[in-house]
C-alpha cells in the first residue's frame, strides 16, 4: 500500500481518536508527541520512548548503522595532498597537463583562461599506514594512525564544478536548491530516537586555512518539501545554543514551568471548546521545547568530560565552536541517540597558497576526526555509528596561477576525489576505487554522489528507491532516479 496514503490515513485516524478525548490530554500528549502510531494502537516497544516516528514501519532490511556523523569538509579538500598519492605529478612537476588526460574536461571560469596548465606535485609526502598499507599524507598524522578503521573511497565524482551547486548536490541530491537534505530524509524515514533533542543536529566551524573565505547556506540542512519537523537544528557555541532556546533574562526554569502549567490548562480549555486535535500536539510541542531547554545545554556542556578526552581531541577541543569541540559534541549527541549529526568545516578552497593553507586546514581537523572514531570505538558506539569525512569535489592536478618551487594553487575538480567512512557497516582498513597516475580521471570503480547516497541509506536499512515523498505529483527520492549501492565497501 502506498505510504502517502498510509500517512494520510494515519493522520485521519489520529485525529479521529483524539477527537474522542476531552480529559487528561496533558499526559496523553506526551505519549502522542509526533507519534501517531502510538495512538493507532500500533505502538512498538522500540517506539514507545521515541520522539518523531518515521514513515517507515520498519527499515527495509537490517540496518548496519543507526546513527551518522557526517564531517563535511566544505570547499573541496585536495585529494592530491591528502589521500591520493601521485608520485608522477612530482616527477613531472611543471610539465603541461597532457590533452589526452584532460580530454576536453570542463574547467571552471577561474582557470579556463590560463595559457598553461602546469602539473603540480604535492609538496607533502605520503607513507603507507596500517595493515592494508593505506597511503596517507603526512598532513594527517592522526588520521594515519586509524588507517585500519577507515574505508577510503578514492573514486568519488560529482556533476557540479562550483561550490554552491556541488555542496547543494551533496547534501540534497540536486544542484539547484529546493530538495530536502540527507538528514531530513532520514528523519522522515526513520524518525527520531530521542524525545529531548532534535533528531538532526548541525554544527558549524571555520577553518584556519582560508578564514572567512567561504559561505554556507541554511538550505543545506533544510527540510525542502518535507514536514518542518525534519529540518536540521543548528547547535551554536555561545549562550543560546539553539535559537530562542534560552528563557528571557530574569525568568528561571521554575518560573517557566509554572507558566507552562497554566498555559497547558488554557490550551486544554481550548481543546474542550474547539475539539481541534492540533491542540494536543501543541501541548506536546511545548513540553518538548521545555525539555530541550535542559537537554541541549546539558549536551553542550563539556565540563563533565575528563581531561583525557580533551587531550585525545586536541587543544582546540576546549575552544567552543571549533571543529574539534564540535567533534566532541557530536560524540555526546550520538551518546544521546541523535540520529544524524552534520558538521561543516569551512575553508578547504585552496585556489592559491595551497601548501600553507592546507596545512592549517588539515591541522584543524586531523586529530579530532581521528579521536572521534577512536572514542566511538572505545565506547562501543562505532559498530552502529557511521562516520563520514569528505567535501564536495576534489582539486585539479595542475596549478591555478603560477607554479613556483614552494607555491601553487588548485582549482575545483569534480572528476575525482577522496572521502572516507568508518564504522557502521563499512569495511575497515579498506581502499576503494582508483584514479589514473595523474590523479585526474577515475580508472576503477567510480562512485557517483547518488551512489554514495544510495549506500548511505542502505547502511541505515533503507532501500533508496523506496523512501519516497510525493510532491507536485512526482515521487521524489534522495537519489532522484539514480544511485547504485556500492556493495564492495560493505562489511
Amino acid at each position, binding site marked *: *500500500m*502506498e505510504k502517502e496514503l*498510509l500517512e*494520510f*490515513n494515519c*493522520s*485521519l*485516524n489520529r485525529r479521529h481518536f483524539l*477527537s474522542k478525548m476531552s480529559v487528561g490530554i496533558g499526559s496523553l500528549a506526551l505519549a502522542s508527541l509526533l507519534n501517531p502510531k502510538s495512538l493507532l494502537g*500500533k505502538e512498538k516497544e522500540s517506539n514507545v520512548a521515541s520522539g518523531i516516528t518515521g514513515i517507515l514501519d520498519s527499515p527495509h532490511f537490517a540496518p548496519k548503522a543507526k546513527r551518522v556523523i557526517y564531517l563535511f569538509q566544505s570547499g573541496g579538500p585536495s585529494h592530491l595532498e591528502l589521500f591520493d598519492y601521485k608520485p608522477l605529478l612530482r616527477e613531472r612537476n611543471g610539465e603541461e597537463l597532457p590533452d589526452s588526460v584532460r580530454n576536453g574536461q570542463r574547467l*571552471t*571560469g*577561474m*582557470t579556463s583562461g590560463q595559457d598553461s596548465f602546469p602539473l603540480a606535485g604535492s609538496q607533502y609526502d605520503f607513507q603507507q599506514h596500517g595493515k592494508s598499507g593505506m597511503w596517507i599524507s603526512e598532513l594527517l598524522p592522526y588520521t594515519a594512525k586509524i588507517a585500519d578503521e577507515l574505508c577510503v573511497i578514492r573514486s568519488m565524482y560529482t556533476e557540479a*564544478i*562550483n*561550490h*554552491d551547486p556541488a555542496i547543494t548536490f551533496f547534501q540534497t541530491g540536486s544542484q539547484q*536548491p*529546493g530538495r530536502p537534505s540527507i538528514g531530513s530524509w532520514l528523519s522522515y524515514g526513520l524518525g527520531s530516537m530521542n524525545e529531548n533533542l532534535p533528531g538532526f543536529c548541525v554544527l*558549524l566551524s571555520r577553518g584556519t586555512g582560508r578564514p*572567512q573565505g*567561504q*559561505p554556507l*547556506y*541554511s*538550505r543545506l540542512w533544510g527540510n525542502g518539501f518535507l514536514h*518542518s519537523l525534519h529540518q536540521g*537544528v543548528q547547535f551554536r557555541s*555561545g549562550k543560546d545554543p*539553539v*535559537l*530562542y*532556546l*534560552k*528563557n*528571557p*533574562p*530574569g*525568568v*528561571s526554569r521554575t518560573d517557566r514551568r*509554572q*507558566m507552562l502549567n*497554566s*498555559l497547558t490548562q*488554557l490550551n486544554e*480549555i*481550548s481543546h474542550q*471548546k*474547539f*475539539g*481541534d*486535535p*492540533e*491542540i494536543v500536539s*501543541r501541548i506536546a510541542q*511545548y513540553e518538548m*521545547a521545555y525539555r530541550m531547554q535542559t537537554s541541549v545545554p546539558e549536551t553542550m556542556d563539556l565540563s563533565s568530560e575528563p581531561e583525557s578526552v580533551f587531550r585525545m581531541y586536541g587543544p582546540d577541543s576546549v575552544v567552543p565552536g571549533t571543529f574539534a569541540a564540535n567533534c566532541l559534541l557530536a560524540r555526546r549527541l550520538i551518546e544521546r541517540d541523535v540520529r544524524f549529526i552534520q558538521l561543516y568545516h569551512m575553508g578547504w578552497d585552496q585556489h592559491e597558497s595551497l601548501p600553507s593553507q592546507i596545512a592549517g586546514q588539515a591541522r584543524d581537523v586531523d586529530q579530532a576526526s581521528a579521536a572521534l572514531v577512536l572514542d566511538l570505538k572505545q565506547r562501543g558506539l562505532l559498530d552502529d555509528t557511521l562516520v563520514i569525512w569528505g567535501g564536495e569535489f576534489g582539486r585539479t592536478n595542475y596549478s591555478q596561477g603560477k607554479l613556483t618551487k614552494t607555491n601553487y594553487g588548485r582549482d575545483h575538480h569534480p572528476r575525482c576525489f577522496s572521502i572516507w567512512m568508518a564504522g557502521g557497516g563499512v569495511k575497515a582498513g579498506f581502499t576503494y576505487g582508483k584514479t589514473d597516475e595523474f590523479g585526474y580521471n577515475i580508472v576503477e570503480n567510480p562512485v557517483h554522489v547518488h551512489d554514495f547516497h544510495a549506500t548511505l541509506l542502505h547502511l541505515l536499512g533503507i532501500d533508496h528507491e523506496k523512501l519516497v515523498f510525493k510532491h*507536485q*505529483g512526482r515521487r521524489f527520492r534522495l537519489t532522484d532516479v539514480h544511485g547504485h549501492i556500492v556493495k564492495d565497501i560493505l562489511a
Partner: protein
Amino acid sequence: MPRIINVLLVTSLILIPALILTSCSSESGPRQKQIPDIVDFNFHIKPILSDRCFTCHGPDANTREAGLRLDTEDGAFAALGEDKDHHAIVPGIPDSSTILDRLTTDNPDEIMPPPASNLTVTEYEVALIRRWIEQGAQWKKHWAFTKPERPEVPAINNPDWANNPIDNFVARRLQQESLQPSPEASPEVLLRRAKFDITGLPPTIEELDAFLNDESPDAYEKALDRFFASPDYGENMAIDWLDASRYADSHGYQDDLERTMWPWRDWVIKAFNENMPYDKFVKWQLAGDLLPEPSMEQLLATGFNRNHKITQEGGVIDEEYRVEYVADRTHTTGTIFLGLTMECARCHDHKYDPLTQKDYFEMFAFFNNVPEQGVIPYGDESKAPKPKIKMSVDDASRMLPFITELKDLDSLEFMIMEDMKEGRQAYILGRGQYDNHQDSVSAGTPSFLPGMTDNLPRNRLGFAEWLISPENPLTARVAVNRIWQSLFGTGIVSTPDDFGNQGALPTHPELLDWLAVEFRESGWNVQGMQKLIMMSAVYRQKSVASEEHLERDPENQLLARGPRYRLPAELIRDNALAVSGLLVKKLGGPSVKPYQPEGLWAETTSLQGLRRYVIDSGDKLYRKSLYTFWKRTLPPPAMMTFDAAARDLCSVKRQKTSTPLQALVLLNDPQIIEASRVFAEKLLKNEALEDTDKLKHAFRKITSRLPDEQETQLLHQILADNIEKFSGAEEDTKAFLAVGEATYDEDQDLPKLAALTVAVSAIFNTYEAVMKS
C-alpha cells in the same frame, strides 16, 4: 449504459478521495469500500492510471513500454502490438481487457505495475477499473484542460441558508453526504476571521464593540468594505504574491549579495490596493516592457521575472546560469499562472501530463531574449544587474508616493525585463543541459492547450494575452483556486501548483468552474471575488469541528464548517506588534532588520558576503513582517520556523506545521517579550481597569474574544505567581523588563509590570492567539 452522462449527475456521485480511501493501515488492507454506482474516468480512473501506469505507458515516448499508452483515448483502446485480437481495454467487456489480467496476475513477470517500480494497485482500484470498463469505459479529457463553462447553480433543500451561488454548490454536496452546514460564527470570530483575511491584522476592541452593536443587516458587508479600503489590504495580499514570485533582498547563491527589488514589492502592494484587475496585473508583470510606450510603472512591474536567484560565484559558466534563470521563469510561469509542473518536461517529455520537451523549450523561448548575464559582478553593479532602469526620485515619488524614504535617496535602480532586438535562438536542450543544443525551436505555447491566435505577437506580450484569453482553460481556475486557498487554508484543488493528471481533484469541480467564469466575466476583479466568497454562508460558518465532522471529514473538504488554521509566520508577529501598539504602519520602502539572534549571518557568510546583520532601531523594528530583509541563504529564522517560504523557488502553498521550535520562538523571541511588556504597561497605566479587567482586555485584544471564568482564573494565577516571583527580585525584574528597545516608565510598580508581561506573553502562546478560526 449511455456513453454520455450528465456532468452534474457524475459529480453528484463522486465521493471525494478522503472518503474513498478509508483503510487504516498497510497491514489490515482496505476496509470495505463502496464502488460508486457510476465510475467516472476523470475522478476515479485516471488518477490511478496516471499515478501507477503513466511513467511507462504515458506521454513520454522515450520510456514507453510495449508500445502501450494509457494517457490518450486512442492509445488506451488500440490493439496491442502485432496481435490484433488483444486490447488493454475493451469497453463493456472486462474479460477481454488485458489490463485487468495484468493488474491481477500472480505471475511476477507479468504483474503490473512491475515489482521493481515499487508501485502497486489495490484491489479496490482494480474493482473500480473493472466497473468502469463494464460501464463502457467512457474516456474524458482531463478536467482542467477543457475550458470552464458556467454551470447551472444547483437547487438545494435549504435555499434560505444560501447567500450566493457558492453556497448552493457547497450545500448540494453536503446534502449528498447527509451533512449539515454549521451555523454562522459568532460576530467576534467572524470579524477576526475577515479582518485577518483582508488586512492581515486583528480587529481592535473598538472595531469588535462597534460590530457587536451594529444591528444593521449589512453590518458585516460594511466591515468587509472598510477592510478592503484600508492600505493594509495591499500589504496582506502581497505576502502570498511575494512567495509565488520568489521575491528576496539578496541574490541567493554562494556569497548571496544584496539586491534592490523592493520597489517592485511596493508596486505589488500598490497594485493590490488599487484592486488592479488580475488580467492587467498579469500582463504588466509578464510584459509591461513590451506594451506600447511603456510607463515607468509598467516597466517596474516586469521585475517579477527578475526575482529569481542570480549567481556571483567565480568560475561559474555564464551560459549555464543564464539558462537556469530562463528555466526558473518558465517554471514560475507554469506554476503561478497555469498550475502546470513545467519543470518535469525540461529533461524529457512530461511523465504524466501531455507536455513535451519541445513544449517546454517553446515556452522557455519567450523568456530567453533578455540581455542578461549568467554571472554578475561584485560591487554596486550587483544591486541591480542588467537589464535595469534608473529612476529619479521625482519619478519614483510620483509612482510610489507612499514611500517616505525616497527623499533620502539619489535615485533608484532596479532590475526589469527587456528583450533584445535580435532574439536568441532557442533550442531543445538535451537532458535540459545548457550546452546540449538539439533542434531549434521558436516561442510557442504548450501544444495540448488552445493555441495563440494569429494576431498575437510571438513574444511575452502575446504570451500574456494568450494566458488571459477566455479560451485558456487554466488561468482563471488557477487564480480563483489560490484566492479560495487564501480564505479557507486549502484550495478547491488542494494542489494549487499542479492542475495536471497527478494533481488533486477539485472537491467542488462545478463551484471552481463557476468561480473561474465569474472571475473572468467580472473583469478579473480580485477584491470582488474575495468579497463574494467572504459574503457566502460557507465562509461565515462556525469553525468548531464536531465529533461527526472529525469522523467524516477531518480535513474539512466538504466545508460543513468554517476555516480554522494556524496564521502564517508574518501574521503571528504582526498580531503581537499590532495589539501591543508597537506596529508602525507605513507602506513600502527599503527592507528592514528587526531583532534576530546575534552572529547568525557572520557564521555562514564569507568576507565578500552580507555578514553583518545590524538590528535596526526605532520605527524600523516594528514594521510589518513582510518588510523584513530577506537573505535567501539565511532567511529570518523565526519566520522560517513558522513555515515561511524560503523564496528560492516559486511557492504557492505553505506548510502549516506545529513544532517545538515554534514554541521556543513564541516563548523567548525578544520581539514577543517586548510586545508583551509594552502591552502590559498600557494595561497597568489604565487605572480605570481592575486586574481582572486588565487580563480580560489583554486576552480579548489578542484572541478577539473574552475569556471565560476558568480562563480568567488561570490568567490571574499567572499574574499572582509572577507578582510573587518578581516582588523583591529587583535584578530579575529589571533584566526581564529590559528586553527590547522600547523604553518604559521606571516609576511604577515594576514587579507587577513584569508579572503582567508574563501573563500577556502567555496569552500570545495560547492556541487561539496563533489561529485563524
